[in-house]
């Protein structure tokens, strides 16, 4: 790997400190337990988990790269393909669907001109269909970049949200 590629993989000191805090939660001989947190932190900084980035995280935790890659591909909030700057995930499971989630999904598709699993040409938005987020009473809802939940959505609040996300 060329040196410049390696530099682009390097995580910020803040991210590395956060990963250290994850490692500290587990017994000293169980560093691998921190891989879920470490991958989340790496993805948060870099936008998505390239194969090289997963290997970089695996090295930090002294674990085989394949074991980290298994984790990255098993849990569905990790993105192992590039995504837009703003990933919107809509829960369409039954309780949400009963409360209007499909209508919100259709509105998002129309506004963004893309379907589920697609990214807008300008790289601004990715739209995903998600599974139960454990907040069914507040449906319809979506997640922005995995971490911020927007609940009780209406077409108007969806429009306001999209306008805010540059």
């Amino acid at each position, binding site marked *: 790997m060329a040196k410049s590629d390696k530099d682009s993989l390097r995580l910020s000191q803040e991210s590395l400190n956060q990963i250290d805090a994850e490692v500290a939660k587990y017994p000293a001989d169980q560093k691998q337990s921190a891989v879920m947190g470490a991958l*989340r932190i790496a993805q948060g900084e870099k936008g998505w988990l390239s194969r090289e980035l997963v290997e970089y995280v695996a090295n930090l935790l002294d674990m085989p790269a394949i074991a980290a890659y298994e984790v990255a591909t098993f849990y569905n909030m990790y993105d192992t393909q590039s995504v837009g700057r703003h990933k919107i995930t809509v829960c369409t499971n039954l309780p949400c669907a009963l*409360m209007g989630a499909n209508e919100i999904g259709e509105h998002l598709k129309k506004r963004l001109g893309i379907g589920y699993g697609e990214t807008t040409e300008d790289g601004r938005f990715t739209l995903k269909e998600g599974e*139960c987020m454990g907040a069914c*009473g507040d449906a319809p809802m979506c997640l922005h970049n995995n971490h911020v939940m927007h609940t009780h959505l209406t077409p108007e609040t969806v429009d306001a949200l999209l306008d805010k996300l540059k």
Partner: protein
Amino acid sequence: MSLLTPSIKVCSWTQDFDAPASLATYVANGGYQALRRVITEKISGDDIIAQLKLSALRGRGGAGFPTGLKWSFMPRAFPGDKYIVCNSDEGEPGTFKDRDILRYNPHQLIEGMAIAGYVLGARVGYNYIHGEIFEIYQIFERALNEAREAGYLGENLFGTDFCFQLHAHHGYGAYICGEETALLESIEGKKGQPRFKPPFPASFGLYGKPTTINNTETLASVPWIVQHGGQAFLELGKPNNGGAKMFSVSGHVNKPGNYEVGLGTPFAELLEMAGGVRNGHKLKAVIPGGSSAPVLPGNIMMDCTLDFDSIAKAGSMLGSGAVIVMDETVCMVRALERLAYFYFEESCGQCTPCREGTGWMYRVIHRIEHGQGRPEDLELLNSVASKIGGHTICALGDAAAMPVQSFLKHFGDEFAYHVEHKRCMV
């Protein structure tokens, strides 16, 4: 309201406070008194387990297993490391009660876990929090820091030799990790694939050490039981179904949300609390315990009380207490299609009957919904479902089969109509 008054709001009493999640609110209202008393008075673990058994507290995550009995399986005198793990991986469609405990009453869970650590001989605990609720994970992390700074977690608690540390582990999107052994694999930094049982976690759990895993609401109920006694908790509910429980009501009601009521409360009362079926519509069907529980027609449900035994007698499960309400506008084929897709998507792929069967069932229901159903499809669905249920390592297989079987049992006419007329009868 406070933790010192024995009200029906066992886990939800903080919700009307200005800062419900804060340590100050919790301590000012009796929080951490039970832990202090247990540790400083060196109350024996046997006594606490006896109170839990008396209370008839049953696991609030879905299985309803008696908590006191589960704790008694733990080799408490075993000299090595032991763990207490909380399952806050709440992803059973319809369930959103643990999220409210974590964001409005995190200290009661922390206190419950510390008491569990004391009883079970665990010096370290982990709380596994569902991936999609990152903001709630952060609230819980803040609560942990508050508890550490105030000396409720850490070394030599209350000047004794008891030490207990607790950490939060954040999931990242896998329904299967709600299964307790998949959850342990996940904490170990692996794919969340369930383990064969036996050995059970009490003998071979996290990192191969004895481990007890309980649901959030179960552990958060423990300080209340220690404070007021097992008998008082039992009396909030009914025999064999002790205590109050949070019910998550979603779907076609006017006021979706969490309602904590005594076990044994009539379903009709809960429905009324949730504002009734939305705007004058009629009750068609209810899934009483999260998406994996068999669906029941509305008229059967209206005769049920909300407790493990009554719902089981009616042919379903109280499960996690997630009540999904459907009115007469719902197409049951379409509803089942969505649930079937969920289990197909979330199968971990380890066992062939589940990996292949969930996809097969989804494809058959999908074609019925889209006007391409075949006359033999209903029988085929029942056949596939019966070959998944009971033939897999974990309960996800059963969870995928039960909705299919129950939808066909109670609403088979709608499926047959779809097949025959290539369209919906609703």
